């Protein structure tokens, strides 16, 4: 359960595993300037100042240069966090546009944190075991 911190807004957003930065932010009620959403235009670039991420699909060299592969530049529509990450926007800040989605995301994050913190929480039982 990676989280995404936005220090500028004092916000922490919960991302589903395997979810892109862009998708996670939009689903949590945030918005910012994006373009093609398919890794082709580079408009949604931001900086990851802490944590790591990877691209699981091809990204054109014209969009992310060799230097940008290692300097924290994050093409947010394609980047999937590998750990908790902290982001910093470039020209345009992230805005909260849907407080309801924000609230739902906050609850999901707290629930996930509580689950992770609980000692020896029984997880999936072995095959064949009943539930409830």
């Amino acid at each position, binding site marked *: 359960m990676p989280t995404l911190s936005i220090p500028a807004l004092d916000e922490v957003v919960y991302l589903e595993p395997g979810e892109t930065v862009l998708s996670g932010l939009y689903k949590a009620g945030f918005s910012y*300037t994006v*373009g*093609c*959403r*398919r*890794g*082709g*235009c580079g*408009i949604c670039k931001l900086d990851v100042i802490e944590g790591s991420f990877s691209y699981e*699909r*091809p*990204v*054109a*060299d*014209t*969009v992310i240069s060799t230097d940008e592969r290692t300097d924290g530049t994050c093409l947010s529509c394609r980047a999937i966090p590998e750990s908790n990450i902290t982001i910093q926007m470039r020209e345009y800040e992230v805005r909260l546009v849907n407080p309801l989605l924000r609230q739902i995301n906050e609850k999901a994050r707290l629930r996930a944190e509580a689950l992770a913190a609980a000692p020896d929480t029984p997880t999936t039982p072995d095959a064949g075991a009943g539930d409830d």
Partner: protein
Amino acid sequence: MGVMRMGYAHVKVTDMTEAKNHYNGTMGLYETHSDVTPDGAKRVFYKGWDEWDHHSVVLEEGGVGVVKYGWKVEHEADIDDIEAKARTFGLTVERMSKGDNPEIGDGIRFVTPSEHVFEVYHQATAVGTEVGTHNPEVFPRHLVGIGVPALDHSLITTGDVGTMERMLSDVFGFYATERVQTSLDDDHECVGTWMTSNNQIHQMAVIGGPQGKLHHFAFRLEDWNSVGRAADLMTMDDVPIDIGPTRHGITRGQTVYFFDPSGNRNEVFAGGYLAFPDRPTNVWTVDQLGKGIFYHDRELNERFTTVLT
């Protein structure tokens, strides 16, 4: 008559598997050929159901943006004519041979002032439309996805629209059906032009921006209903829609702008009024550009001038 139409758009895609899902599965193009370039790049060739030449769209794996455009001329002699005009214009023209492009004949190639590669050819292997020519049905029964009939036009960007308009006019014999200008004064700057050689409202449009970039290439649809249905299918296939369905003030065409899986902008385009060379050119001033591009929103979205491949 010279150039009849944009015969093919050859574009780059980052992932061929995803691109094929889009151009075949969602757009409904028919694959006619695939190969690997000497550099090892995968290519796939497509045609729409109502096109008769071998292909109209070429995808090449590795990057994004446009590789080149092919322009089909009516007569073999038109190639020489265009070559002479291109040289007069000051362009460097090279000959291309039959087979440089699969199933395309001899022709010429040059780089435009906008830094796009144009090829001009007369011969292409005839494959035939999917409904044939003998007592044809009005569309193929088993179309896939949107089922676009044909490639329609493209919009490219350049730092100098005026020079590109002059080139398309002097070399290709195109005329402008619509134009966007900074003002109506004599000393105006041309910031956009929509050009054609025949009754099609535009075959190539050019707007101000970086050199050598692709804004979009478009597929033809019949009417508003098919534009709406296309947008429905884009939602089903999770295709990111840029804008629409809406209408352009410029050309009066009905449209959806959307992105392929590599981020190249596509369009489905229907309608547009009949163009004639003696029809006075429509002129839009930049203060009304929003209405000209998106007739209902009346303002450009933030992607229109920034998202290019």
